């Protein structure tokens, strides 16, 4: 079940900074739409993917996302980072509980409406601890994804392409410079600027 689990063995921030209370505080204000969108942008896909990795179908995975987020919404007033540990740790535990609950309920649902019941193996899953690292890993992936979206919308297309084609697609600066009609030096400058923004975005969100 965890066969496709991809571990990032080491990155400079592998000791993830604990979730600082600022986003938490903002989330406690129900009307803070911005904080909630920020939160959802990051965590919805993370929870969804974790559910999907357990062979859930789309509708069930979406329901799990909803349930986790609701529990978060309900309990966030009471969440105390000093005693409960990191926000992310709490989220991943909630995800696990909701997932297990859901499988259990699918097994004995009242109506004809149901789902796969042959997946109860989740309850016997011996690698529960792995969920936390999986969660961290998924969260970081999603952070990168959000960062890409935000930064791409902030920089020129040439700058973005300079970054993407050299840093991600692994093309040489000379090749990309020729394609984009600029100098290799400009490509270097642009790609570094873009990564700087991406890094700043991620660190700022991670610090939240």
């Amino acid at each position, binding site marked *: 079940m965890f066969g496709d689990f991809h571990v*990032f063995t080491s990155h400079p921030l592998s000791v993830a900074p604990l979730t600082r209370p600022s986003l938490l505080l903002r989330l406690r204000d129900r*009307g803070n739409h911005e904080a909630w969108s920020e939160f959802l942008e990051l965590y919805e896909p993370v929870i969804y993917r974790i559910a999907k990795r357990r062979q859930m179908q789309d509708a069930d995975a979406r329901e799990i996302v*909803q349930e986790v987020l609701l529990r978060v919404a309900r309990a966030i007033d009471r969440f105390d980072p000093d005693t409960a540990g990191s926000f992310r740790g709490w989220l991943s535990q909630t995800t696990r509980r909701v997932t297990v609950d859901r499988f259990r309920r699918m097994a004995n649902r009242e*109506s004809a409406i149901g789902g796969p019941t042959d997946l109860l193996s989740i309850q016997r899953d011996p690698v529960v601890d792995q969920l936390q690292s999986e969660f961290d890993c998924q969260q970081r992936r999603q952070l990168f994804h959000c960062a890409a979206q935000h930064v791409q919308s902030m920089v020129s297309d040439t700058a973005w392409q300079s970054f993407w084609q050299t840093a991600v697609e692994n093309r040489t600066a000379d090749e990309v410079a020729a394609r984009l009609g600029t*100098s290799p030096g400009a490509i*270097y*400058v642009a790609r*570094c600027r873009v990564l*700087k923004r991406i890094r700043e975005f991620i660190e700022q969100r991670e610090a939240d």
Partner: protein
Amino acid sequence: MVAANFPSPTEQPDQHCNQATLLQLLDETLQGDPLRVAESHLSSCVICRQRLETLVADPSWWQETRSVYTSHQQAAVNDGWSLGRPSAALVAGSDAMLVWLRSILRPDQHGQASVQHATSLGTLDRYRIDSIVGSGGMGVVVAGYDQQLARPVAIKFLAPHLAGLAPARRRFAREARAAAAITHPAIMPIYGVNENSHPPYLVMPLIGSDSAGRSLQDRINDEGPLPLETAIDIAAQIAEGLAAAHERGVIHRDIKPGNVLLEENSPRILIGDFGLARAIDDATVTVSGMVTGTPQYMSPEQAAGDDISRQSDLFSLGSVLYAMITGRPPFTADSPIAVLRKVIDTQPRPATVRIESLPAWVDRLLERFLAKNITERIATADDAARLLRKVELHLRQPSANELPSELQPPTSRRGLVATTTATLTAIALAVATLAGTTLATVLVTSALTQSPSNDEPMATQLATVPSTPAAKQSTRKQPTDAPPPADNDREPIWESIRPTRNPVTIAATPPTPEPNLPPEMLWLWPTFPSDVQRIHNELLQIENQTAGGRPAPVASSADHFSPSF
């Protein structure tokens, strides 16, 4: 850090960049010639490139970036999550969807009915497929025509990415069969299911096209609040449909105005997507990511992810009724998550606060459905249907049909003696107030039309009390347990002598009096206790004196529930 601090102020292409220049490059503050010089140097100098890169992030960052973005592109294709938006392949009418649809259809045969339907996409079994109506996260809906039975149909396909999954197919089949087993006039019939086709599909009547009616949501959007009688009738039909389904052990789970279809030129309604709400999204629902469909009509237990029961449908029905009556759902907020929180732990604004002309029992009726605690909620769909039908009768013919006792104001249930006493006190006080004032007119009855000032305190009270049902209830019971001074307690008194609540206020400014009693009010007078009648007459006399003999208005339109709120 080979060339950390070169002193030269103007750098030459062959000189390494100094640290400040590199930082300025990254900050985007270097401009003009120095920028060109630095770029040109970087075009050839490997050392400075590396310095610049390390300044941004150490090599493992660059590595991780590449690895994440490379794998992310792959994953986005695989896991179908496109950041809360429906995946591109599912957007209605998209080329991809048409291509997919065409691939499962047979091309039209010439010489058949298709001649008239040049737009037809092809046929599947005995159905001609004309167009894509919509698509959701889990399915695609097309408009078609049953060539054998010569009727228009809507066909729902399980989405291509799910059709290949055995559990999804099993679930689809099970839910379709459960839904097909329910036959009730208020429930959208299922004409047929083909679970062995690729992809599986089910066939239903085509409703919601231009010619064949629209959804309740459309109607509320177009017209705002519905007339009370219409709203009650629709709610009763939904309750009856639910009763039939619940009897078979099927819970709808997604009762909302978008799932209630109104027949054209007929009071009949049809509940759509019975038992299928989770198998296939309704075509009208935009998949908004986190929440499939709207959370505004969810029950608290559903919103909290707890077990769903038959009564969950009844809570949703209450929310639908509230939306019909007031024009908007009981729980609204900026974000879906905020809506869900409200569903779980706040009380909706009383409907009578939103629409002041509503009788007070409407709030009591809604409370029967919208109780957070399942034990306080109306117990079964049967009970709900009966209650709503009684209310409907009462609305049509108030004189012949009493308001169901559970909706009557708490005061009146305590007996006529207490009521009359309280009434007398109230009116005596009113008289006293009146005598001591030189206000031009006291229009007891003006309040019957407009009584915002009287409604507001209750709203405030409700909004500020703790939101637990118990706390709320105690707040509302207060007036009956210990009647406060008449000034604050006029409303229950008037409830007791009239079939519906009509709060009484002493108007500071005289509204234009209505000289004639509306005919539908005439029946009220004989039912007045004689004492009240006598005092009322005295009031009228006083009023006639102060107002210079103008005829007193004795009633208003408050009791016929105006359809145009």
